[in-house]
């Protein structure tokens, strides 16, 4: 692997063909008017015929498939959330709000919600912060530094289950390497995965193992792609390194950072393998987050109706930070 991380090969550039590839849309969404020669007119006519038939045939199967596998299950889940369906009760009708009432009153749900907020906020903030730092460090063109780039690409490819197995062995309280090393340094040896105080931080650290490199790689790509001229201009003007970063580089890569934070937010809410392999949601409730709780209620305990309602809660809770981040991205 070369040091040029994810650099695209030279693709065909629209400008090479003399015309911008996408004309501004004309009325009714058609490509806007171009005063073309006869050949081009033929081509345009062919386009519109092509549009109508071929594209519909090309697109419809995929859209149908997406509809079947997303809309229908989602609506079914939403419907089930009003039922009391569980392993002993088969009644779907009449719909009630009982599940939602339970969510509001059950203290377990409150703990699970709090755990989710702690987990997501900690994971996203730490991963975005450290990822930004790592990406900036990796952007140095020194040959000692570029050699490191490939190392930080590795976690992106490792299946979450394999990573979780490795970490659960390393973090094992009596047999794990981490506590052995800490012992050598005369540092305290926490009961990583088996104490309610350390379990959540352990899962967050493990999540950072795959999350920080994701952010770093995105930041690095954005830094490589950022225009050099403004930075050099700031250098000539005598701006300090920090000011150059703060006022020139950072604004340029800001959209990529927000996008990375958004991807990590989605991943944090969807995290399942780490909780299942490392802690199983425990000890007690200390690492039970909503996503995991939905699985437990539905598949383990068979409370399908209640689990579906928790799924709706998960979607609502996720929507808040995601809408914020989308708005932040749109503003830029």
């Amino acid at each position, binding site marked *: 692997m070369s040091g040029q991380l994810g*650099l695209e090969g030279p693709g065909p550039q*629209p400008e090479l063909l003399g015309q911008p590839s996408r004309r501004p849309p004309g009325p009714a969404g058609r490509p806007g008017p171009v005063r073309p020669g006869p050949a081009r007119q033929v081509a345009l006519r062919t386009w519109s015929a092509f549009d109508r038939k071929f594209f519909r045939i090309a697109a419809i199967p995929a859209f149908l498939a997406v509809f079947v596998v997303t809309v229908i*299950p989602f609506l079914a889940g939403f419907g089930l959330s009003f039922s009391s369906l569980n392993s002993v009760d088969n009644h779907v009708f009449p719909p009630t709000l009982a599940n939602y009432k339970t969510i509001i009153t059950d203290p377990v749900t409150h703990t699970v919600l709090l755990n989710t907020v702690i987990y997501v906020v900690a994971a996203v903030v730490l991963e975005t912060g450290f990822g930004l730092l790592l990406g900036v460090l990796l952007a140095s063109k020194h040959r*000692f530094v570029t050699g490191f780039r490939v190392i930080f690409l*590795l976690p992106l490819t490792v299946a979450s289950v*394999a990573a979780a197995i490795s970490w659960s062995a390393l973090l094992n309280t009596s047999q794990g390497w981490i506590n052995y090393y800490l012992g050598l340094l005369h540092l305290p040896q926490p009961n990583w995965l088996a104490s309610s105080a350390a379990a959540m931080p352990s899962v967050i650290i493990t999540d950072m193992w795959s999350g920080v*490199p994701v952010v770093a790689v995105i930041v690095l*790509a954005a830094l490589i792609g950022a225009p050099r001229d403004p930075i050099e201009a700031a250098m000539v003007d005598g701006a300090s390194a920090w000011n150059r970063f703060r006022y020139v580089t950072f604004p340029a890569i800001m959209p990529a950072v927000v996008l990375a934070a958004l991807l990590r937010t989605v991943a944090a809410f969807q995290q399942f393998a780490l909780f299942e392999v490392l802690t199983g949601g425990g000890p007690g409730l200390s690492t039970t987050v909503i996503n995991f709780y939905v699985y437990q209620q539905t598949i383990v305990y068979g409370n*399908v109706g209640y689990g579906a309602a928790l799924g709706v809660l998960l979607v609502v809770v996720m929507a808040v930070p995601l809408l914020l981040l989308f708005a932040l991205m749109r503003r830029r």
Partner: protein
Amino acid sequence: MVKTAATVNQPLRARRRFLQRHAGLVVTLVLLVLGAIFVLLPLYWLLSTAFKNGNDAFALPPRYVTKPTLSNFTQILGGQFAHYVLNSVIVAIGSTAVALLLGVPAGYAFARSPVRGAKVFNTWFVLAYVAPPVVFIIPLYIMYQHLHLLDTYQGLILAYETGLLPFTIWLMRVYFNEVPRELDEAAWIDGCSKMRALWKVVLPTVWPGLTTVGLLVFLASWGEYFGALILTGPHTETAPVAVEGYIGTTFANWSELAAAGVVLVVPALLATIVVQRGFVRGLTFGAVKQ
């Protein structure tokens, strides 16, 4: 010669001057080495333990140099695990094929034609990606019970398309958008049929993008855990589910578990080396190009 303080401290001063001049680089390298240790430690554990015998795997202090043994691999691949790996391969190839067959033409249509309601579809695809799998998979589990699709390859592949198909359509559109329309038009003027133009002219141009999307989709279904845990059974259980199930049961020790982990990791690693150029684009849905 009388040794003065100045001459004694000369090497020290030189070192200090060196540090001052290269302070940025030194700090960078120190931080990168710390980061690299954090990243490599679990991978080192996995790789080294997979080639150790049971006693060495548990030993403290860690035995870094042991006589490598392949017994863990022969042990697990001689048993049921080979069947689960095969299931993973079937499901990963199947879901990649479906995603590309349906997603590439749709991505082309999406990129080229002013599809009415494109905005609605955009939003829908983003939602389908963002929405947590539990929201789809658990209702699917209940529907599959009635449709007899539980523990079947086609059921799991269909479920994987919830995420993979929107991803394929989205990213292929980005790649098709980079091919100028004029290229398609020129092919028609030269007398190509539409299908032929797509097949002979446009697809070869987006080939690098196509392979990137294909491999990313393959990787995603290869390592997928949650859907497989819920929708598979004894016949179609995939390798990640099997590995997790072995913790504390069939596999007596960590070295076999680590070997199973290596079997999971290596194909993905190879695939990534092939697509590394397109990796970041895949991660960011084409938003970050380089």
